[in-house]
């Protein structure tokens, strides 16, 4: 029921939480697992003490109870593997991997089981599993708690990967992910959590189709491609460029696998220049993938080589001034845009 008049602005956390709540109401096979997703392990008088470290799952335990909302021990391989098995046998588990840098203790379950079972078993088993993970630097959390890493999962056939960039896309992509019959990983950048950007978030349920990028700003001089948080950076850069008289188009990738190749190629064919802005490590990454795609599919249209703006080939530093240099920022993007436009 649409009750809003005008614009409904909520935070990324609220939007994500709303999507999850709606899906749990709609479909009794949806369940949630993860460390402190409720909190206090259901201890009497302390139910829902946490609701997840980022409060993404707050309120679920009181409404849906201990069977469908489970705090887990710190056993990611165990409970993500359990998510795979529950998905294979009839549930739609939504499992939190707190920060993506913890992938290393459970990668086997994600990339050898979730990703491959449908194929290995000849298409006869489906794994409608959703995993969500926090990503990104900028919170003074050092090398192990600040990674982006979605490139690793995009590498694997059998996985789908999405990176929302704001509350609207967080809600729509999470709903689409939960309803999807393939395993999907939703990457939530920690810097987006707190932001409450302009933009309407409908109260009713809606899906954003997995595999579709969106143009968040039209332009004609250069295409800036962002992924999750860097879409935000691209928007800032586009505003600066506009002030200088340049018209930048901003493409928000949203889906990493499948990737909307058509949207990328058409935009670049129009603007003839591209700057790809990504926070993941630079080698064997989304940025390289997009650059290669553009080089191969839009070669004859390009006025300048594709340009990547990424962190250096370096772990994430703790010290704040170093960390600030690490994450791509709008000035980096503006400078790169100047380069390709000259």
């Amino acid at each position, binding site marked *: 029921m649409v009750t809003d008049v005008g614009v409904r602005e909520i935070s990324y956390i609220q939007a994500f939480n709303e999507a999850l709540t709606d899906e749990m109401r709609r479909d009794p096979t949806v369940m949630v697992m993860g460390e402190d997703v409720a909190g206090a392990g259901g201890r009497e008088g302390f139910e829902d003490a946490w609701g997840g470290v980022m409060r993404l799952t707050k309120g679920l335990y009181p409404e849906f109870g201990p069977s469908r909302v489970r705090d887990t021990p710190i056993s990611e391989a165990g409970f993500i593997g359990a998510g795979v098995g529950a998905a294979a046998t009839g549930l739609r588990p939504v499992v939190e991997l707190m920060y993506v840098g913890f992938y290393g203790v459970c990668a086997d379950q994600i990339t050898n*089981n979730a990703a491959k079972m449908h194929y290995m078993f000849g298409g006869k088993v489906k794994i409608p599993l959703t995993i969500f993970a926090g990503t990104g630097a900028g919170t003074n959390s050092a090398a192990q708690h600040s990674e982006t890493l979605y490139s690793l999962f995009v590498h694997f056939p059998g996985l789908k990967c999405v990176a929302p960039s704001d509350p609207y896309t967080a809600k729509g992509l999470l709903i689409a992910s939960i309803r999807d019959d393939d395993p999907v990983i939703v990457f939530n950048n920690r810097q987006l959590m707190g932001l409450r950007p302009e933009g309407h978030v409908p109260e009713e349920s809606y899906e954003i189709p997995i595999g579709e990028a969106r143009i968040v700003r039209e332009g004609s001089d250069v295409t800036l491609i962002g992924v999750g948080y860097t879409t935000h950076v691209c928007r800032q850069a586009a505003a600066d460029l506009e002030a200088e008289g340049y018209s930048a188009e901003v493409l928000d990738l949203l889906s990493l696998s499948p990737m909307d190749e058509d949207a990328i190629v058409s935009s670049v064919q129009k603007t003839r220049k591209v700057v790809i802005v990504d926070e993941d490590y630079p080698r064997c990454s989304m940025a390289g993938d997009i650059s290669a795609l553009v080089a191969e599919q839009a070669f004859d249209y390009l006025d300048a080589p594709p340009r990547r703006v990424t962190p250096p080939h370096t772990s994430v530093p703790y010290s704040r001034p170093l960390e600030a240099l690490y994450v791509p920022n709008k000035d980096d993007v503006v400078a790169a845009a100047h380069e390709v436009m000259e």
Partner: protein
Amino acid sequence: MSATKLDDKTLLWMYRTMLTIRRFEEQARREADAGKLRGMHSAVGQEAVPTGVCVHLRDGDYIFGTHRSHHHCIAKGLDIKLMMAELLGKATGTNKGKGGTMHIADIEKGMLGANGIVGSNIPVATGAALRAQVQGTDLVSVVFFGDGAANQGVLHESMNLAGIWKLPIIFVCENNRYAQSTPFEYAVAGESVADRAAGYDMPGIAVNGMSVLDVYEVAGEAVRRARAGDGPTLIEAMTYRYMGHFGADNPLMYRTEDEEDEFKARDCNRQLKGYLMENAIATEAELDAMDEEVLEEVAEATRFANDSPFPDPSELTTDVYVSYR
């Protein structure tokens, strides 16, 4: 060991299942030796374990296997025609030829897959038990794994999860004494795998895996516990693989003939045959006739597999996703 609860039909089903495993594995070995497939892990010698467990299962229960899982599949009732076709990579196989010997699965039959990564299926099976619990069923989940797999951390994580949530799962360690060439005594600290259950709030029971009747009894109790909501059990079935690790290798590189003979003297199929005859459940002639029938079924499966077509080239890229735009 008492087998009072066992009726003749069940006993004969078990014997036929164990014979089918034995004959299937022998034939599969021949197919492999003929170069039709590679890297196959034979379960000859271990017939009793899945047979004594799966006899307690019903529709809707799931089992989960390992790299060595033909015997699990057969005990859970998979069609050996489709299995043999899968081994040969044929379009008619259980997995359309895409999975092969290490990944045979049949969700309709409740076999959720052999798995090539040691230990990897243990949490997946835990998840099937979780689903059974969340949906309020009395279904159970069974996971088979080797003595080698007992040293993968994920077993510990899964036993802990099953322990705290009282999940309806049976962890069945087939301790065949070796992980590749590495002896169990070398690789496993402590006396046994079963002992480890104590730390996870569940019974841990070692059983003679060369006796299907012993396995039957212990597994029956575990399945009852699980269905009743009393939680998980760890069973360590002491067994032996007669062939090399992946079939073509020579096990006498790392173990003695004496040891092999000792286990073969307790061969599970021969033991059950003796029991059936001693208890006048069947005559030797009847059991030999059963063997002939099984051999013919295996031959038929082999013909079916060999005559089946390979997958169409277009199959290379299908089934990666349910949908992908």
